[in-house]
């Protein structure tokens, strides 16, 4: 579908595509709890399980955007609750630096969310995914990154 100006138009049925990198021990289990508790949340989120937020690499985020993600969520155990004691503390420093770098490069930080969600917080998972999905829906598709290759 092309607009009069010749650019691509968002298909009518566009849905936010969200990739969530979540830690095995807390957030994944929390999401599981939301499922077993039969809580409803938007199906827009694609979950990728990582062993710990300490395993998160900014490359994951870039790859997700490259493949058309509109938003990326990274979530793990609350500080002090890491299964590996300090993985999330180390991750937090990396998040701080990476997030700032994205901002400096002009990437919209509303498309990059970080959260701590414990295994008992099924409700927080549902709420976070819901809020994030609505934020992204309001913003529309994230074209700037994925389509950088096409624009000349």
């Amino acid at each position, binding site marked *: 579908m092309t607009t009069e100006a010749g650019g691509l138009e968002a298909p009518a049925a566009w849905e936010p595509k969200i990739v969530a990198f979540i830690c095995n021990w807390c957030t994944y289990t929390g999401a599981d709890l939301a499922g077993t508790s039969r809580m409803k949340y938007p199906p827009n989120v694609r979950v990728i399980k990582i062993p710990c937020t300490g395993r998160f690499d900014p490359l994951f985020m870039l790859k997700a955007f490259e493949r058309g993600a509109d938003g990326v969520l990274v979530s793990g155990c609350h500080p002090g609750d890491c299964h590996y004691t300090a993985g999330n503390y180390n991750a937090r420093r990396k998040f701080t*630096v990476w997030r700032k770098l994205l901002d400096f490069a002009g990437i919209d930080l509303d498309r990059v969310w970080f959260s701590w969600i414990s295994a008992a917080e099924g409700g927080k998972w549902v709420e976070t995914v819901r809020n994030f999905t609505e934020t992204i829906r309001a913003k529309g598709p994230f074209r700037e990154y994925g389509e950088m290759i096409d624009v000349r």
Partner: protein
Amino acid sequence: MSDRTAGIRAIAGKWLQDGTVEAVLGWEQGTYRDKTAPVLVRKAEEVDRLVFNERCTNNLMTYLKRDPVRSLNTVGIVAKGCDIKALIGLIQESQVPREKVKILAVTCPGVRNADGKRPVKCAACDVNTPVFYDEIVGEKIASNPDRAARFRDVEALEAMTPEERHRFWREQFDKCIRCYACRQACPLCICSRCIAEKNQPQWIETSAHPRGNFAWNLIRAYHLAGRCIECEACETACPADIPLMLLNRYMAKVVEQSFGYEAGKDPQTQPPLRTFKLDDDNSFIL
């Protein structure tokens, strides 16, 4: 012949003669008058090749990661204060054992880029007289650093809107030809196999299109966060004139503000992304 050149030759000759080091890494006169080239001197009778002048801009620490130098048991290295900061980083990260390297420090009034101008690092220099070394030559020079000079360009970019910044970097990265000169010149880009060369999976697109360039340049800057000692070797090496130091200095600013750390100061400390504090900033995490 300047006093510094004479001093370097004398000490390098002594070290090579008595076997303190197997070779000395330094600068020699280049093909053109206003250029110097790196040289690895292995014999005492060859020390006269070594020179020091304001064209000794390159940071020689990058050669510590190359095989001919890596295979030596001991190496002497002629270094300015800024170069030594890189060595401090390498020692911190256990890349170079302290006892392997003999530092032949030279006091430095400032160097010049190819265009004859003083680089920003010289305006902001706080180590005209090096503080970490084995031997030192040259008259002591008091530093009068203009530390704000480091972040002047960064702040101009910070004042823009995200859209403007994105456009700015799109245009800059568009010029990148992916020659990886920035990585090769960098003394702290130490991976023997760079992530950009790994292709299973291919994390960073290798084609020189804006998206691949965006990923490469951001990841390069990120990997140097809290490690870059601002020697400007990457930017000097860049054939496309991409202002890479803007990214590096911005990362340095973030690290200073967030973790109160400045790279290249103390070999005993931990690099900031290798450690953490319980009360690090948590405000951006839900």
